[in-house]
């Protein structure tokens, strides 16, 4: 048994609702998950399922009401700012929207140097590291002096990945990092994620709504629905032979890029929906 890098147990996240004595909104209802070093855990779900909230809870950006998030045995659910700082070289993030995740008024070099300056890296080492990072994500070193707007979505996402890599973390939370990208760009960025993982042994918590994307990158996959994990297991099993009714619906709802097979899948889906409706009806009767 390998050791566990991140161990999430029964995490509950409540968001306060504005207004006097309003019940808070429970975004996560007791979620448990673990990630091993060098592993990709995919987190699939629809909007509002709580998948992004779980990622933010790991990053310390969402308020954890109860439960524990153990990073290498240490609870990181309620850290002070200073303790978070120490953790920032261990856990990093790549966000969904490559257009708002980079400050538009800073150059690429300034953006990439930022996490390094916190570590008190000298100016000379820092700019050397920036060139190195750009090289790692497949961008020319001349990119350093330019502004984010001069880059396409895929290139910006590469910059965001470079920023996440700057501190050589062991875990990167990826929040829908390819869903804003075109198909061919998406494939290349996923390839980059894979290659970086193979080279550095970093682990990913990979959040996405797209089963195909999650399948291509993840070792294990968790499916979230209404703030809970409804199915959790090896990628191939969850994404090709799902067991939970919701995962089955999700699986059959995604259209296959093949007219013949899609016709088949459409029929399967309608049959599944009919069967599930029947079951719900019976469950209601009983």
């Amino acid at each position, binding site marked *: 048994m390998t050791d566990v890098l991140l161990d999430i147990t029964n995490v509950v996240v409540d968001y306060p609702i504005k207004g006097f004595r309003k019940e808070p909104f429970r975004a996560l209802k007791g979620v448990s998950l673990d990630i091993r070093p060098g592993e990709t855990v995919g987190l699939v779900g629809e909007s509002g399922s709580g998948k992004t909230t779980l990622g933010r809870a790991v990053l310390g950006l969402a308020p954890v009401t109860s439960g524990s998030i153990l990073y290498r045995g240490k609870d990181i659910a309620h850290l002070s700012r200073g303790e978070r700082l120490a953790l920032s070289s261990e856990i990093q993030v790549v966000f969904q929207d490559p257009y708002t995740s980079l400050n538009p008024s800073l150059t690429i070099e300034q953006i990439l140097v930022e996490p390094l300056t916190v570590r008190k890296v000298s100016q000379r080492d820092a700019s050397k590291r920036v060139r190195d990072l750009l090289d790692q994500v497949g961008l020319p070193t001349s990119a350093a002096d330019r502004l984010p707007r001069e880059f396409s979505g895929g290139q910006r996402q590469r910059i965001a990945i470079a920023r996440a890599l700057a501190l050589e973390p062991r875990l990167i939370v990826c929040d829908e990092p390819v869903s804003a990208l*075109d198909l061919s760009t998406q494939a290349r960025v996923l390839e980059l994620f894979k290659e970086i993982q193979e080279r550095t042994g970093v682990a990913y918590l990979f959040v996405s709504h797209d089963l195909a994307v999650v399948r291509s990158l993840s070792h294990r996959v968790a499916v979230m629905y209404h703030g809970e994990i409804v199915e959790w297991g090896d990628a191939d099993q969850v994404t090709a032979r799902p067991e939970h009714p919701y995962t089955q619906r999700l699986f059959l709802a995604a259209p296959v890029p093949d007219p013949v097979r899609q016709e088949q899948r459409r029929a399967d889906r309608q049959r599944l929906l009919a069967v599930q409706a029947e079951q719900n009806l019976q469950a209601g009767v009983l």
Partner: protein
Amino acid sequence: MTQAMPLQGPTLTVAEEERSARISLFRRLLKNPSGLVAMIFLALIVLSAILAGVITSADPNAASLQDVLAHASAAHPLGADSAGRDVLARLLYGSRFSLAGALVTLVVAAVIGVTSGLIAGYFGRWFDSVSSWVAGLVMALPGFVVLLAARAVLGPSMWLAMGIFGVLISPAFFRLVYASVSAVRNELYVDAARVSGLSDARIIARHIFTVVRAPIIIQAAMITGIAIAIQAGLEFLGLGDTNVPSWGSMLNDGFANIYKNPTLLLWPALAIALTSVALTLLANAMRDELERSSGSKKRRGATKRAQVLVEHELVVSHPDDARTEAALGEELLRITDLAVGYDQADGSVTTVVNDVSLVVRRGEVHGLIGESGSGKTQTAWSILRLLPDGGRVVGGSIFFEGKDLAKASEKEMTALRGKKIAYIPQEPMSNLDASFTIGSQLVEPMRVCLGLSKKEATARALQLLARVGIPNPERTFTAYPHEVSGGMAQRVLIAGAVSCNPDLLIADEPTTALDVTVQAEVLDLLRELQSELTMGVVLVTHNFGVVADLCDRVSVMRNGRIVETGPVRTIFAQPEHPYTQSLFEAILEDGDAREPLQDTPSVETIVLETIGKGASK
């Protein structure tokens, strides 16, 4: 994916502008005529205030009975006032106190307003509520009355009065900073900085302050102008410190002697007015320069239209198969050699769609697939003639029911849109007006297009809502857009699109903003409605799954051109164009899942493997 075209030219210039903005706002202000004049004038005022002692040797407070109300002379270049004091000296020394007083106001207001705005906007919580409440309270206070009361209690100190005015006007800074900061606070790059371990102070200094800096500078110039006017007002009323020469007290004196020597009034009035005007002009010039990137590009008149040469390129075209042959009816839409262009500031035209030809027949769903910037949405919009500003059809024809839409008048288009050609947008929420109920947004077009009475239209709207699978039509009918989910909103828009029984439906990424399970339902609905009404559909999408699900024929677009077109089954089975092939290769669906992570091999297994390899050799 459907934003306005990412045109190469403007993007670059905007980026350059932004960069130059960082280099020097000052240098750009020098190029702005009103900014230059205002800056020169203000520099003169400040200089004369500093060098007052050098410019004139007269003492601003030395009264001399012989010189009472003296006219201009060598000793008194601008004359003397009612106490025989030199007007020029008082004007110059007065500017010292007027500017210093305004500066006191500015500093007090900025320190209070900016700090509290930053804290409230960034940290929120209780400080947010308390400070917003206090700001509201301070704004509600009648400023002048408070200043009068303060004078009564604290005595006639100009500095104190200006300081108090600074407090009174600080909400102007507070609200500005608060609004900009709370807008930036939730930007992802601020989150990313937090995850990088930056301290709050650093995030504020680096990421937040850069955003609010420009508005603060502009506001500062405005407030200085106001402060000078208020100060003059106080002293004009005789509430100032009589020992201090200032523009306001000169105004007071001049007004008292307006019939004896009107020029006494002229000089301070000019100084106050010109300084205030200069500050306002400067503020405006700064705003213009700082916000110029947000589009003040001049558009050339439509009369001067550049010609566009269309070059033809070979399109891989597959013949209809038996399936499409059987299913499709008469020709509905024929687009030939379509070119769409955007007029540029220099009079040239950037084409975003080139040489596009396609035919849509009744009962056909024609997919337009491509990546962002491929021109698929532009093609769809040009059919509706709803291109964004500056865009127009620059070549080719769009024949619909025997009429060329490329040349049709705006009136003819209005008659067609909604009635014959309907449209389903990508973002359901932003295409419903938040201030009207869903019902009224459905009923109104039907009354116009079909000439129904209100009652008939309501009945039909309810019927349509039920048809598109909305569980409780009556409730949705009376609901406002924000009360329904995205999937429901898209159903409402589909109901609206088919309400007038159109012949042609343009669907622009109709399911992109929806969850997968909702997307499947909406696709089912579109398929049912399409066969029920035997419409022709142009479906714009970037998702091959959606094309496979719904389309009869498909055209693959790249860089504004169609590269391959034909029946869906043929193209999916035998894509011929290299670009289409590369797109199919990028599809992930058929790939293998990754194997579960193996436990890190222990030293033992590695040794064993090496031995094994050695043995097998």
